[in-house]
């Protein structure tokens, strides 16, 4: 079975390599600084011993005060996994760097999150609606979206 690496265990090494990248840690996950998400993800993908070569899924959660985007990374090489979290406090125009350059599997999922949650992924090659149609007003998975 895939071993879930403790966030605290992994964060200590990461903080030394990329200072200021980690905002918080827990047993299950690492909360990453917005600006250093790309460099940290690239490090996780390429660093020998870590080599998270597979992006299992991306999820987004609306906590009213901020959006949280959650990346589940897996290493098929070492059979271990980690959860990355990024927060976005700007509700009007939320934006997060895209990870399509690292994992192609992120492309459709980031597009879906943009469609339903309204978070823009900067650097995504095709940042437009995927499930709903062009011209749809609002983003229906947001907590404050009510259609009735």
């Amino acid at each position, binding site marked *: 079975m895939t071993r879930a690496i403790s966030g605290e265990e992994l964060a200590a090494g990461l903080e030394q390599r990329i200072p200021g990248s980690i905002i918080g840690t827990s047993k299950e996950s690492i909360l990453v600084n917005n600006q250093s998400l790309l460099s940290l993800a690239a490090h996780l993908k390429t660093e020998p011993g870590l080599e998270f070569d597979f992006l299992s899924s991306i999820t987004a959660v609306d906590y009213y005060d901020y959006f949280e985007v959650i990346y589940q990374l897996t290493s098929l090489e070492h059979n271990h996994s980690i959860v990355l979290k990024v927060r976005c406090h700007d509700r009007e125009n939320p934006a997060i760097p895209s990870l399509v350059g690292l994992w192609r599997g992120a492309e459709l999922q980031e597009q879906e999150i943009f469609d339903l949650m309204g978070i823009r992924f900067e650097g995504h090659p095709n940042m437009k609606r995927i499930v*709903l*149609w062009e011209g749809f007003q*609002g983003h*229906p998975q947001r907590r404050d979206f009510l*259609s009735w």
Partner: protein
Amino acid sequence: MDLVPTRRFVYSDADLDQHEGEVIEALKARSQQPIPDQDQWLSEKAPEAGILLTSVDKVIDWARSNALWSVVCFPACCAFEFISTAASRFDISRFGMEIIRASPRQADLMITAGTLTWKMAPNVRRIYDQMAEPKYVIAMGACGISGGIFQSSYGVVPGYSRIVPVDVYVPGCPPRPEALLYGIRMLQDKISKAKVFRK
């Protein structure tokens, strides 16, 4: 050991052969002349031919209501209840509609089996537009009638009547095959009341 026949014949083989010979001889005796070809009616004039009086409405409505071919429009789970209706246990072919047409140009009836999203709605409307007149629509299931449990959703059409004119509504989630068959019977009753030259 002698085999005991399980079935004892009333007639002996000799009697049967005798009878067979008599049948052949009798037929041969009756068949010495050829039977005249039955084509005299071709040259008869119209008043001498048989006439059956009925109304145009009745004949055309009878034909229309007993050959309802359904188009494929099954966006969601009601389709399985429709498949069950079409299969041998409930057997939709008893009503002259066992042929489910993949081409809307050959279909008369649209059974809307399932939830319709707004993104899918233009395609359903296009299929309806491609069907030849006369055409009918049965809204099957809660989603087909009103959107069902998805009525307040941002992406679901609240009832097919927003997209196409509906003739019969069949409630249920999903409706039992008996309910769908009852809806089809009601549609047939409706068609048989139609005035052909009204439109």
